[in-house]
């Protein structure tokens, strides 16, 4: 009922614009039309349609859109700013205020791609070099993990062979592998990429294998009745059926990789968003740390969103159910 009340003024506004005659007729059924629209947003209520054909049908829908899609997130962000402000006041200024941080952010983002030597580069360069490490480690993990996942899913023997290994190694924090990487690759950058590789590979192997194991028996029966070749089975049945699972693996892997890279860069140094956080901590520049936290969050959000969009595009109705 809250949205019905919310509807009414907006419902009346376009009707008023529509002219004198429709206004007179709309005054009566307006509340009814508003409640009606709550349940059926795709069609215009018959009363409004007959009375004012020129009236924009989207107006009530926009109102509920505003109510549910825009207002709550804004309130959430507002709450965050409020708590932050309170913390700022409570800690006596050791945590900078939202306003100061925003001003600092404006300054930082006015020139994100400057470079004054290896230890002083713009935030843009730091994010890009972190993303580059993630892309490399993650790319290699995909190249290895997806075929391995296919094999494990297709052959029970391999599944039984590798399951104990995966169960043993998967819970290990990827950072525990960093010293091994440093030892073997003798460099900070390859060691960080190696860490990303290790943490990305498990979700991809496991999800691909599960996807292959869950290909509906019906599809395999179709393949058998049609007597399809192994190549056709892989390209026309297995791959499309496994793709949504695989993309879930990719999404989990990228999420973890983005979590891990910050920690890995804090340990290895160089250029990168994680290193930047640590560097600003050493400079006691808390504003920049908070900005970095937001940057890390936003980049992670964008990665996640892009991969969800990608996964939806390749998921077909039957698979979703």
């Amino acid at each position, binding site marked *: 009922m809250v949205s019905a009340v919310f509807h009414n003024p907006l419902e009346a506004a376009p009707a008023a614009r529509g002219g004198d005659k429709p206004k007179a007729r709309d005054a009566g059924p307006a509340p009814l039309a508003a409640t009606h629209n709550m349940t059926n947003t795709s069609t215009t209520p018959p009363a409004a349609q007959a009375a004012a054909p020129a009236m924009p049908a989207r107006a009530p829908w926009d109102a509920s859109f505003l109510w549910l899609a825009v207002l709550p997130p804004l309130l959430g962000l507002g709450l965050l700013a409020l708590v932050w402000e309170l913390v700022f006041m409570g800690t006596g200024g050791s945590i900078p205020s939202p306003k100061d941080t925003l001003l600092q952010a404006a300054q930082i983002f006015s020139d994100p791609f400057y470079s004054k030597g290896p230890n002083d580069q713009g935030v843009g360069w730091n994010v890009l070099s972190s993303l580059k490490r993630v892309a490399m480690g993650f790319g290699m993990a995909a190249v290895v993990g997806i075929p391995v996942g296919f094999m494990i899913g297709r052959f029970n023997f391999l599944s039984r062979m590798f399951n104990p290994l995966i169960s043993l190694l998967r819970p290990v924090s990827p950072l525990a592998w960093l010293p091994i990487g440093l030892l073997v690759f003798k460099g900070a950058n390859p060691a960080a990429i190696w860490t990303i590789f290790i943490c990305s590979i498990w979700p991809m192997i496991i999800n691909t294998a599960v996807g292959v194991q869950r290909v509906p028996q019906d599809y395999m029966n179709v393949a058998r009745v*049609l007597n399809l070749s192994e190549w056709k089975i892989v390209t*026309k049945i297995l791959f499309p059926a496994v793709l949504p699972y695989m993309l879930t693996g990719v999404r989990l892997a990228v999420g973890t990789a983005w979590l891990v890279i910050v920690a890995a860069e804090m340990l290895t140094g160089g250029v990168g968003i994680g290193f930047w956080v640590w560097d600003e901590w050493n400079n006691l520049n808390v504003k920049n740390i908070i900005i970095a936290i937001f940057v890390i969050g936003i980049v992670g959000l964008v990665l996640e969103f892009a991969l969800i969009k990608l996964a939806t595009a390749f998921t077909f*109705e039957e*698979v979703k159910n």
Partner: protein
Amino acid sequence: MTSFTTKYIEIQGVEQTFKTRKGPFRALQNINLTVAKGEFVALIGHSGCGKSTLLNLIAGLTTPTEGSLLCANREIAGPGPERAVVFQNHSLLPWLTCFENVYLAVERVFSATENKAQLKARTDAALAMVGLSAAAQKRPGEISGGMKQRVGIARALSMEPKVLLLDEPFGALDALTRAKLQDELLQIVATTQSTVVMVTHDVDEAVLLSDRIVMMTNGPSATIGEVLQVELPRPRSRVALAEDIRYLGYRKAVIDFLYTRQGHVEKAA
């Protein structure tokens, strides 16, 4: 009424046992059945009586524990396009369009002897036969359940199979759609002269469509209880048959078998 004398599918002493955790489970035993070329046979029985198991055996998707199955005097060693199956849940590949789903089957069977244009023409013809030319470029998710089932039938027929195996093809559809598809199937089978084995649990469907109704006893260890010859002239019309005294007699016979005689077994079990 055509008489069916030639043996086309021969099932001899077939027994099917599944290994389960509780030990072996005998689903079918002592199945003997022959199907003539061009004959329409319905397998009917209560659920769990092994109708689908028998159909899978004819399809070659499973192999019998004992006994033998022959199709055109050759042992059925595995599934193949000459015995096309229409699955209960249509089993279309959701990432392919209707055209591509049918084309996959056409390509497999005819690509050795025909060029691409001919394969496309065959696919179009199969879709036209089930009245779905307009939906050819749609994905299965975008069409209704009845249309999906029609694509499944088009896919099976497009391979020009020697035998058409239907596993409760209309079971998941509403009554009106089912009736419409049954009529279409009657017409298609009259045109193509296919040999058909259909699993069903619908008495009217069995009497309306088939030349013979094979009634199965309740499982476990199900077998053929009775075989009913349906001697209604073709073409058959649903409306005309509704009051036909012979039709009602056949219907009564099947119902009598299923609910009076086989009904008791289920209660005892």
